[in-house]
């Protein structure tokens, strides 16, 4: 994959009377990750949503490969993968159907055997036909990880925006997640991760400590 580059310049966002962040900037080039730290409610999710283009910032720009992207532009939608608090699973679909559905929406054409391999890697193979409503929170999260795993490498989306991805995951799941991010970065991907867990990532990692009104 060609090196991807994500850059933020002078981002500012207020929500009602509260200033969440102002003049926030960073540069991530291929293989780099940014870890967002900070207490609850400090604006980590809002920042990720701004980067994804779901929320418009009050000022500043997000640049993808040096090109400013407007919110939900075509270039952004091809490059950005947003994995939010919500698992984005349909309760009435099985684990496998949910994965297939997400990949279809990502326009990521993955043959069924590879989908099953990804489900197997996250321990979901025996539960692949179980409706998502009957899966535990951790298992639901793991479907999201399987989707991420199928976005590693030349196909799929190179810029990952992950909002507390390890929520509800057990220790093994968190471990698998770290391996996943590492292989993504090794492949020249870029990741912005909001998390409270210590992250032990291979490539060069930046940390951004967000504070109230900073």
């Amino acid at each position, binding site marked *: 994959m060609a090196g991807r580059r994500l850059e933020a310049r002078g981002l500012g966002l207020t929500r009602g009377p509260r200033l969440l962040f102002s003049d926030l900037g960073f540069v991530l080039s291929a293989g780099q990750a940014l870890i967002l730290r900070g207490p609850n409610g400090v604006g980590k999710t809002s920042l990720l949503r701004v980067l994804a283009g779901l929320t418009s910032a009050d000022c500043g720009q997000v640049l993808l490969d040096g090109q400013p992207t407007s919110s939900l532009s*075509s270039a952004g939608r091809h490059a950005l993968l*947003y994995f939010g608090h919500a698992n*984005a*699973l*349909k309760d009435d679909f099985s684990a496998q159907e949910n994965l297939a559905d997400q990949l279809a929406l990502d326009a990521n054409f993955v043959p069924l055997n590879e989908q099953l391999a990804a489900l197997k890697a996250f321990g979901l193979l025996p539960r692949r036909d179980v409706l998502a409503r009957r899966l535990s929170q951790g298992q639901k999260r793991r479907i999201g990880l399987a989707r991420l795993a199928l976005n590693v490498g030349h196909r799929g989306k190179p810029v990952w925006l992950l909002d507390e991805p390890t929520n509800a995951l057990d220790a093994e799941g968190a471990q698998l997640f770290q391996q996943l991010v590492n292989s993504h970065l090794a492949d020249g991907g870029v990741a912005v991760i909001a998390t409270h867990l210590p992250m032990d990532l291979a490539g060069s990692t930046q940390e951004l400590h967000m504070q109230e009104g900073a």
Partner: protein
Amino acid sequence: MSAEPSADAELAAPERGVWIAFCRDLKLAMRSKGELGQALAFFVIVVSLFPLAIGPETALLKRVAPGVVWVCALLAVMLTLPRVFQSDHLDGTLEQLALSPYPLPLLCAGKMIAHWVTTGLPLAAVAPVLGLQFGLDGRELMVVVAGLLLGTPILTMLGAIGAALVLGVRGGSILMALLVLPLYIPVLIFGAGAAEASMAGIDVSANLSLLGAMLLFGLVTTPFAAAAAVKISLD
């Protein structure tokens, strides 16, 4: 953009988004069959209440039939509108739709088509049976069905915009009704107008043509409006 030529070739077909969203919503609708039957049951029951309430006066029943069928169809469609976006909004898939490489208006168009197939189409299919209770004859029934086939997609398309706008708003369903019902007035006038014209023995093509024109206009404009409304409610 992508280094992969094959990925580009596949993405060069954004219209696939319509099909993907359509299949997805249709499949989801089939999974919750109870919900699927609700609008239809509502339509059948409410329309059937009128002959009971008004009494067996054929002339009067026939006179009110088009209006009754159309108002009930309109309400039945409106009851199902939250289904278009609400569950996607709650479980976070709406964000994934917005971030999909497929253009959001096309995904919205697919969702609208799926909604119509699961609501408007069944309503039009049972309308002849209900029309019999009002003493409509064959030709009049055909005009009612034709009107519903042309008109209910418009109800879905306009309604989807309203449904997207009230996402995440408390008391959204009443607000949606207030937003959407006034927009339904032209469809109601021409739909019921066609049926009345056929009873009066006048040419019905004017009314049906106007419905068809609204349908075509809606097809090209409302997906964009619905997509814009979705973006606003995600912001």
